[in-house]
Each structure stands twice: as structure tokens, then as C-alpha cells.
């Protein structure tokens, strides 16, 4: 049995587009499908990095878009896996400053747009490029903790 409940979120997505002002197209040219991007943390065989497209976040560091992205994070049920505030649940923490697939704008975009193995769904189809950039802007706005790798139970 197949069902598609068009979420209320789609309505709010339209509103988001408006609130994000008339953002420039996310990708060079009018195509809504972004080019494959190089993942900068990969080790390049032979020391030669493959060519890749360039993606630029049209909303980078825009606080209003980040706020809209926070609503979208709940509306798209991202918090169902990554928890409120992206602090991690079944899905990994997005607020610890550490990244499986890279934490640069374009890499986070790629993770959300196309999905990732082990369960990250592809949201590019339902959200489109601008919706995904809105989420990227929110995720990149999360405050980073001071990264302390040591946890101790001994009294100092």
C-alpha cells in the first residue's frame, strides 16, 4: 500500500522560499541538479585529486535562512533521527563538529540532497536545491562545542 501524505511542511516550504528572499540559483546555470562534487577529505590516489563541480551556498551565514532551516529540520522529520538541535540519535550528531562525509557547505548539501549509505534518505527530490541549502545553512549555524576527546570519571 502506497501513501503520500503531502506534509504541511510543503506549505511552509513555499513560505520559506519567500522568506529566504529571491535567492540566486544554487548551481552555476539554471539546472536544478547539482554537479558531482569532490569530497575534499578523501585521499586522492597518486596524489591527484579528481576534478569536481563547485557548489556554493547562496544563503551562507544568513541568520534568517538558518532560522527557517531550523523549522524545516523539524518539518522534514530530520529531528526524528538526528534529534532536536541535531544532537544525534539514530543518526549521527550534527553538532559535534565532526563529519563522516565532510562538513563544508557543499559536502553537507550532497549528503542531504542525494542521501548517504546506512540510512540517510535523499531529500533533494522533495526539497529541491534551495530547500536543501536552507537546511545546510541551519546545520552550519549550530554552535560547535569545544572538542574535548577525553571523558574521565575520576575525581581530579
Amino acid at each position, binding site marked *: *500500500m*502506497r*501513501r*503520500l*501524505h503531502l*506534509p*504541511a*511542511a510543503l506549505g511552509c516550504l513555499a513560505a520559506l522560499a519567500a522568506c529566504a528572499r529571491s535567492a540566486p540559483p544554487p548551481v552555476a546555470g539554471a539546472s536544478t541538479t547539482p554537479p558531482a562534487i569532490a569530497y575534499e577529505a578523501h585521499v586522492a590516489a597518486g596524489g591527484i585529486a579528481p576534478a569536481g563541480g563547485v557548489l556554493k551556498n547562496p544563503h551562507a551565514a544568513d541568520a534568517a535562512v538558518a532560522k527557517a532551516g531550523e523549522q524545516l529540520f*523539524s*518539518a*522534514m*522529520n530530520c*529531528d*526524528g*533521527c538526528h534529534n*532536536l538541535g541535531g*544532537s*544525534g*540519535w*539514530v*543518526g*549521527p*550528531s550534527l553538532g*559535534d563538529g*565532526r*563529519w*563522516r562525509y565532510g562538513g563544508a557547505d557543499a559536502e553537507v548539501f550532497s549528503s542531504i540532497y542525494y542521501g548517504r*549509505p*546506512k*540510512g*540517510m*534518505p535523499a531529500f533533494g527530490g*522533495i526539497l529541491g536545491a534551495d530547500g536543501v541549502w536552507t537546511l545546510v545553512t541551519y546545520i552550519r549555524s549550530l554552535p560547535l562545542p569545544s*572538542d574535548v*576527546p577525553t*571523558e574521565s*570519571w575520576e575525581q581530579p
Partner: protein
Amino acid sequence: MPAKNYAATRYSGLTQINAQNARSLHPLWTFSTGVLTGHEGQPLVVGETMYVVTPWPNVLYAFDLRKEGYPLRWKYRPDVSSNALGVACCDAVNRGAFYLDGRIVYNLLDGHTVAVDARSGRELWKTTIADMGDGETVTMAPVVVRDRVIVGASGGEFGIYGWLKGLDVKTGQIAWTGHNMGPDADMLVRPGTFRAPYDGGVDVGAKSWAGDSWKSGGAPVWGWISYDPELDLIYYGTGNAAPYDPEARAGDNKWSASVLARRPGTGELVWAYQFTPHDNWDYDATGAMLLVDLTIAGKPVKALVHFDKNGFAYTLDRASGKLLVAAPFAPVTWAQSVDLASGRPVIEPAKQTGVSKGKVTGVCPSLEGAVSPASPPAYSPRTHLFYTSTNNLCMDYGAAHAAHLRATPYIGVDFAYHPGPGGNLGAFIAWDAASGRKAWEDKEPYPSWSGALATAGDVVFYGTLDGWFKAVDAHSGQLLSKFKVGSGVVGNPIAYRGPDGKEYVAIYAGIGGDWALLAGDTRSDDPTDVREPAEFMKDIARHTSQGGIVWIFGL
């Protein structure tokens, strides 16, 4: 079979290990499964072979118990989609396999049931039973009754349209599908044969939901199935109603959070009883239904005993579904009692949740349940007592709007856990289901998440979240022996007689099965995912970490 017998009592008649000699129990053999996620379920011993199913990727191992070191006879490695890891709500668990007539039958997380030749390890058939695109995964242990394999799907957090299916054991073909809610036709309710003891009526499975909210109402089947051959009825519990905001689905939401009795051959629904009408708190009823003949008020009763997430232990007449006893076995604040005449809980209005209610504080039990349905109880006919793990957690629950978007979580809640009264987060208890009284209790510092095993040696076995495997006296709860097994225990102990005629006890170690149990900082397997410890259980990571290990103990 997964629960030792169709009555699901997890009782072994073996007596070599008893209350007098259990102090000298010691580990004899271990095996790393190579999988780090939660090891629920239990090994299966048939003749001279032990079968072990791992969590995803659901490898099936067959160990030769005749040879030193128990080498593998074979292993079966199915092709299971890794996408299932993002559709399973709570961890990539598997609750075990069933053996019948030379076949091992079990479920794969990505929505398949497989039958494997027990001798050769060759796949006999593989059937797609669930649709990950609709949020369905499969974690439960199937039960085979005659020529039917009975299976269900998880997905109460994804707004599935919950169901139970009967497959042909020889071919794997789906013979029937009975939904847990919806119109009578979908539920396999046939005129004149469905007799709900309290709430019947045409299409009650659809009419007790606002609008068409039943279509995405959850009621998954991720727990245990039991069977009474005399009555020819299978019994199983359904999970929570979806979403977590009850105001999105006004009505009783039948038959979520319920026990259903069906005919195994045709799937026909015979009776149903709802433990938590209009579930406000994620109180799945997927815990085991133990079928035991009890004497209640001087009368012999064919009983069904169930410890619910909602904190009440229920004793029903398993022929009719009529409620006989309901008493709290853990702190309960959402209801004052259960009315035996109407079968309904007497609700505490201040603990009703919903978006309009905001944050509701002090709800006991928490949505982890007073017992996890993943932790099946045991019953000893020698002591007439039931044995179960319990959790002592309460919660604040703030419902939020949720949109149903296929294959994404359909939840909508902001919650926080708090330790219940007494400060211990769990316990292991013995329960008299005829009177509804606790016989004894062993407090545990952490939520207790393992299944129970009772034996004719009057020893009861269970494991703890901080990684102890314990043997206690069935009459008193007194500790007889304990051993630290390397990771927290969320699996179920078994006893068996080896090819050498000696009694052994086996258990999985491997914390997981629920992300709350990992408390944020228990996992260390992903350097790109580092979290703070959870507020309610700050130091569990001091005592355990992940790791799947099969343990065998003996004298």
C-alpha cells in the same frame, strides 16, 4: 523456538544447574559476532547445533557443539540493505530464529523473511514481507505454527499501517495479511467470529481513529508471538499509535497498544483487548504474552499474562480476552488503576499529553516502558512466579506536530527521562500473576533490559545493562553467581543440554537496542560522532561499551 515453547514461558526443565551449585558457574566458551549493535534475542540450540542470528547484517551462524571449540558448520550471509539502518527506529536488532522440520526461519532487517536448510545452511526461500519505502523494517522473531510462518513489521515511529502476515512454510508465499487497525476487511474480521470482550462493533478499527488517521497509525508488531494449540489461537501485542501527538488521532485508536488473538491458518481475528486506549505515551504492548494455567480465586483459569510498558501487569482469560487481574508492577502515574468491569484504565487527566497540553511532567513509566517489550519474562511452574526485568524511569513529554512523510520518522515529541522513586533505574522482579503482587525484587542501578530464564533447578538468569550476567535463587532472588560479560546485556538467556549430556546456559552480550540505553557516550565506534552523556544516566559508559559476544556457561 525463540521463547523455548509456544506458551512463551522461557522455562527449562533442566536441573543439573541448581540453587545449590550455581555458585560454581563459569564461562566455558565465547564467540565475537563481529557486530557492535544491540544483541537482543537468544541463541537457538537444536540437537547438536547452536544457531545464532546477529543484528544487521543478520548473519546466521551454525556452531557444532560436538567438537572442541564449537567450530562453525556453516554461516549464511544474506544480502541485507544498509538503508534499513535509517528506517529502523531504535537500532538494527534481531530477536531470533525459529526451527521447525529441518528449517531455520528468521527475518532480515530490510523487510525479508528467509528459510535456511538447518543442515547445509542453504537458502530455501526468501520473501519480501515489508516495504522500507513505507517505513517498515523487521526485527521480530517469527513463530511457525503447522504450515504457517507468522511475521510482523516494526515502524511505529514511521507511521506504518501495522500488520501480521502468515506465510507458507514450504514456499514462503504470503497466505494472509491481517492489519492491526482499519476496516474489518483489512483486519480479517469475519462476521460472527470476532468477539471483543469489551469494545466491538463494525469497523471499530477504523471508526476509533479520527478521519483516516488509522492509515498511518503505527501499531507495529516487533515483539513476540505465542500459541495455544488447544484453542488454536496465536497471541501477539501491537505497538504504539502514531504519531506521538495523540491529538492528531482522536479516539481509542484500536487496536494499537493491544493484544490480538488470531487463527494461525487463516489469520482470522477472534478477539482483541486494548491495554492503553488512545495511547498518549508511546506505550507499545509488543511484550510477550505468556500462556499459563493459573488458579485465581480458587478457580482454574487458562490465563494470558502480560507485563506492559504502561506499568500494569495483566492477567486475561486467553479463550475470551476478558480481564481478570491488572496491577502495577512499577511506579505508574498516567492511570490510577484498571477497571475490571470495563477493562479500561482509570486515566489521570493531568498526565494526558498532546500539542495543546505543552510539556507534561512526571509521567511514569517513561516511554522506555516499565519493562521493555524486548525483554521477555519467564514463568516457573515450580514457584508459580513470573520473572521480569523492569525499568524505573519517569518522563516529561511534550508532544509536537509531526508530518507524515514516507520513510521518514513520524514522531513529534520532546521528552526527557528522570529516575523513578528510589533512585535505582531498574530492577529484576518476581511476580504472582494470580494475586497481582510482587514476590521479591532485586534492584539494579541501570534500566534492566534482558529477558529472563527460569529452570527446574530453581535458578533464574538475567543480564544487566552494565554487563553482569546473573544467576539468582528463584524463590528469594538471592544472588548465586555473577560474571562480567564484556558488554551490557539486552539479550535473553537460554538453558540447553549439550551433546555430552551436560546442562549449559547461553547469553548474548552487546548493549544497544534502544538509543537511550547508549546514553550518548557509550559508543566509541565512530570518531565522527561524539556525544555528551545523557542526563538521566551519566555514567553507564564507565561500565560498558559496545560489542556482540555469545557466552556459554557451565558447571
